[in-house]
């Protein structure tokens, strides 16, 4: 018991010094250790040696401007992109050594753009989430049915279950896809921009699902979010990327600062603290050569360290 506590402490203080150390299964569900990620056909790696630890049972949000590599990092963590160097550890085991179905029983991924045939029903789509739990010739078990019911219930798309996916709105589709990854029944869930392109109602609905998952289960969630305010409100921890490098990480109120917004997002903005988390009031876009609002000498990396130190 005491060992457990010390481990938790270790994570809270030595955030993201990454694996290597004795990672007990429960406390290190997903760790990226010094990973280098690149796409075939490009020379420069998108992510060049970054480490990240998903906080167990909590929501970690990856934020950053377009092209900052946050989705790439998520793909690397989900074993959809093989790291050129470094490793990804799932429950303390190198993900490369695991069987693809075994990975999919522990780790679910909702991609940014999901396509499906128009005529598939929501229920059939959700049943696909049970794929990693079924053998080639296995039929549907009671366990599968229960998991699908739970997922549909949690994603709140029970009223849609017999509808064809092609007839749904973008927001409803997203709920159906979320139900599908939930049916996968994994300990770790990775979501790539689940709220982008949705109307406000469905954005909030998706956020509520994530909050419910955090509050009522010990599922570990890593989510890429486009909207930094939304991320600050939702996440327990935030990781900010720019040009493939992690610039800051920590509690939302420590990460979302005027300085970080200037450095990472290249905007001038006012940040005010509210009961719902930091609130951002964007003023204008910053351009190269703009005077820096704060002291201009320190580099981004130093600032990141400052943030972490706080």
């Amino acid at each position: 018991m005491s060992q457990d506590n010390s481990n938790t402490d270790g994570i809270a203080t030595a955030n993201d010094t990454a694996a290597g150390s004795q990672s007990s299964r429960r406390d290190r569900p997903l760790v990226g250790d010094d990973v280098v990620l690149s796409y075939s056909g490009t020379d420069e790696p998108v992510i060049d040696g970054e480490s990240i630890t998903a906080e167990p049972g909590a929501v970690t949000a990856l934020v950053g401007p377009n092209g900052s590599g946050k989705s790439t990092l998520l793909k690397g963590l989900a074993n959809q992109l093989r790291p050129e160097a470094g490793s990804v550890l799932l429950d303390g085991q190198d993900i490369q050594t695991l069987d693809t179905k075994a990975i999919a029983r522990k780790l679910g991924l909702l991609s940014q753009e999901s396509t499906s045939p128009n005529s598939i029903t929501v229920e059939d789509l959700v049943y696909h989430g049970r794929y990693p739990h079924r053998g080639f010739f296995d039929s549907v078990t009671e366990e599968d049915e229960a998991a699908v019911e739970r997922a549909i219930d949690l994603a709140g798309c029970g009223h849609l279950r017999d509808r064809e996916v092609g007839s749904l709105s973008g927001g409803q589709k997203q709920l159906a896809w979320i139900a599908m990854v939930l049916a996968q029944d994994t300990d770790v869930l990775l979501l790539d921009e689940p709220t982008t392109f949705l109307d406000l109602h469905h954005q909030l609905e998706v956020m509520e699902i994530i909050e419910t998952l955090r509050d009522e289960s010990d599922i570990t969630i890593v989510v890429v979010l486009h909207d930094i305010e939304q991320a600050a409100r939702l996440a327990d921890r935030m990781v900010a990327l720019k040009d493939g490098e992690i610039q800051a990480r920590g509690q939302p109120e420590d990460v979302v600062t005027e300085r970080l917004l200037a450095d990472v997002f290249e905007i001038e903005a006012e940040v005010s603290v509210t009961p719902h988390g930091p609130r951002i009031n964007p003023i204008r876009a910053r351009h190269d050569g703009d005077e820096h609002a704060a002291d201009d000498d320190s580099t981004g990396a130093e600032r990141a360290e400052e943030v972490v130190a706080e």
Partner: protein
Amino acid sequence: MANETRGATDVLSRARTWLGTFDGSLIGLCVASVAVAFVAGLLQVSFGAYSMTILEAWQAVFDPKVLFSVRAWQSFFFGTELPELPKRTLIVWNIRMPRVIVAVLAGMCLAVSGAIFQAVTRNELASPFVLGVSSGAGLTVLLTLVLFSSLAPFLPLFAAVGGSIAFLLVYMIAWKGGTSPVRLVLAGVIVNMVFTSLQRGLFFFADDLGVVQSALAWITGSLTGVGWEEFRIAVIPTLVATLLALAGARQLNLLLLGEETASSLGMSVERVRFMLSAVAILAASTAISVAGIIGFFGLVVPHIVRLIVGSDYRRLLIGCVFVGPALMVVADVGARLALSPAQVPVGVVTGVVGGPYFLYLMRRQEQMGEI
């Protein structure tokens, strides 16, 4: 004991899952297909150079001398000698009937093959023909006929080898960190062109006109003159390919969700694609080795079925297994009887009817390409 009951409930629940896929539209489609195939088959066995009335044809079809004769069935299935039969029965059972049955097998193979290729490539425009499998198989078949005629019994095998080579070529050309429907079709067109040219070139090496004529029948796709021997060649590969395809229906369904989703759900996408492609190549090669290159069939039939039963591959494949044979028998009736006494290759009929129908589908659907 507990194990037994579990096994039993397992079988039951699986049967229920499959039965559940039979909804109204699929049942209707299957019943209609059987009826159409039956009527067309009856027409096919009734008419021809040796004329008999429909009643006489019926009597010949249900002649107990064949139906209850072990020797007759042995001769059909294993190629032993046929017992003595009345002339009408002989014509119906030995000449006209095998043609209908081979048409059923070829239709099933091509429809299933096209359906698999369309899921594997996630491309509505895919078919054994478009992906070069047909022309590759055709080339090796021609090579065998023209240059190594003594190896004719191994035709399906050679056809499969040629089809696989062509398919791999197309895939390699189209591959660029993934494939897209358009690139696959373009690569297929190019490989098709090369292989078709090679086929034409081979004609000049043929010794006599007979070989050229049979080679030509191959290239256009013809069921003229097929007998029980072709049935024996095709029946086992057809059953194997069809059963494997049905067993892989869930994998095919998952492939339709896209590579990313499939692999995040734990599928080894490339391996599954490869194995399912092998099944599709087996099916296409089987059809090609007994009936030649019948164009448009593998493209159009899955489309028709998809329009009626939707894109769930459990239903789609069952639909293809019924609709493919029915349409092939009908097309062959047209090929054999429409311009009687002259016969045209069935590939001409499927091309002439299938092409315009496909164009019509293209006009009607706003988007065509990715499923």
